[in-house]
């Protein structure tokens, strides 16, 4: 079940990218061969891209693919390295919670105002929701990572004691 959930995320992202490629290509084909320019394809592609970015950012958190500077923390002893790692993780967690909260606030405002997108007249809230949803998922991923880091720390500490 868990592995299905894990794969599910990958399928959604890969499928989304495939649709994005299709839309952009379709737009060229329609204009070049059929002399009609699509306007809706560009709008959907843009919103899809936003979802790909923020869901992708959460996925990258899970895969630990985010770019960070490691030159300094590498020089620390493994014990203080652990503490610094936890501090960095806590800052990251706080920020993703903040972004999910403020993004959610904005999405709700747009939802209530019923603001619509220019071409397709989709509720803009659906597009803006990419930010709070992505940040929220990132928050959850990071909590799991924090728990793992803390557990590693205590197990290592107790291993040292028992020695």
């Amino acid at each position, binding site marked *: 079940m868990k592995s299905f959930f894990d794969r599910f995320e*990958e399928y959604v*992202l*890969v499928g*989304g*990218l*495939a649709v*994005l*490629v299709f839309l*952009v*290509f379709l*737009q*060229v084909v329609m204009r*070049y061969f059929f002399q009609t320019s699509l306007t809706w394809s*560009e709008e959907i*592609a*843009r*919103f899809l*891209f*936003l979802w*790909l*970015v*923020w*869901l*992708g*950012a*959460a*996925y*990258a958190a899970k*895969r630990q*693919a*985010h*770019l*960070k*500077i*490691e*030159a*300094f*923390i590498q020089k620390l002893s493994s014990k203080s390295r652990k503490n*610094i*790692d936890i*501090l*960095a993780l806590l*800052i*990251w967690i*706080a*920020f*993703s919670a*903040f*972004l999910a909260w*403020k*993004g959610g*606030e*904005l999405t709700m405002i747009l939802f209530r105002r019923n603001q619509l997108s220019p071409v397709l007249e989709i509720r803009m809230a659906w*597009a*803006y929701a*990419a*930010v*709070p949803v*992505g940040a929220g998922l990132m928050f959850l991923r990071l909590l799991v990572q924090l728990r793992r880091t803390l557990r590693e720390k205590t197990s290592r500490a107790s291993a040292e004691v028992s020695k």
Partner: protein
Amino acid sequence: MSGMVVLLVFGLIAFTMTIGVPIGIAVGVSTAVTMYLTSNTPLVFISQNAFTALDSFPLLAVPLFILSGNLMSYGGISRRLVRLADSMVGFVTGGLAMVTVMACMFFSAISGSSVATVSGIGSFMIPEMRKKKYDAGFAAALTAAAGSLGVIIPPSISFVVYGVMTGVSIGELFIAGIIPGLLLGFAMMAVAYIVSKKNDYPKGETYPSMKDFIASLKDSFAAIMVPVIILGGIYGGIFTPTEAAGVAVVYSLFVGWFVYKELSGEKLFSAFLETVLVNGAVTFMIGLSMAFARFLTIAGVPRFITTSILEFTQNGAITLLLVNIIFLAVGCFIDNLSAAIILVPILLPVVTSFGVDPLHFGVISTVALAIGFITPPYGPNLFVASSISGVSIEKITRKVWFFCVVLIGVLLLITYIPVLSTGLVHFVYR
């Protein structure tokens, strides 16, 4: 006031980055905290920019160019490009080294990323060079250095991001990168030649024959067409850079699947998955750093920095030197896109006040930050070259400094001779 904002925001960024908070997050946190403490802008500002800065059609070219490069690597293009390069320069002293640089130049014209170039070409060429008794550190360092061309020779993800941030035409940036890219490539070939001569590295075994050249050209023809389609399509006004990237994806899929028959469902999935992963790790930063840049502008920071520099020097040449030093220093620690996203909005107003063309500055910043790919401690190309060759980072670093010096030399040429970047653009467009 501005001075305090500068101190606070950059202090926070430096602190959070140093302890290992991801770069984009570090920028976001620092902006949020500084904004909260020094202004009464509502914090929703940040989440709003996290959306609006990314709601841009040109930016879609980023994942699409990453994807087309991945498809090319998986689809058997690299080997063919190496063969083509071999038939052209393999006979020279240090032939394999020449072939490596040349193949990286070809690959750069297909892929928009440096790391992809290093792994695409390096996984063939580093083992080949070691077989012929080239120094392992040199072989890996050469590939790492030549790989940095990936973001300079168009198409280039760096140029897409720079264009989106500054409003400079992405098509013009692509053209502006051509001559600097070639210059850097030839400079690296010169280094390869000198080192090979000194160490008596062998020439290629076969002399070039027209027959060989034509055979390999035929074999790699489908791959060589990619830059023709991309650049030709953009300049011919047939499509925008984003659409060109979309066409490049479909084309490389077609070539890999039907012409070279080296793609499979599984490889396709990996190519897509790698793309969403890299896109997720990199692109969201643009949203957060746009909040950062806009907040700094509201707080008057670019003006503050410009006046501070003006107090220090009124000389445009010295300012450009200073800016290059900042790029090179920052490039030692963070990757090129993050660095550009943070620094360009601050530094562009500074250099334009000295009359520097934003187009020219796009090339300067991209080349300067591309050198960061091979400067330790954080040099992505060094890591990739090390992991595909098994040579330690230390060993590669000992051989890479010579390339750094030469690349910096070319950077200065590009900085002080604007026509190298803008000349071709004026020729094509105006």
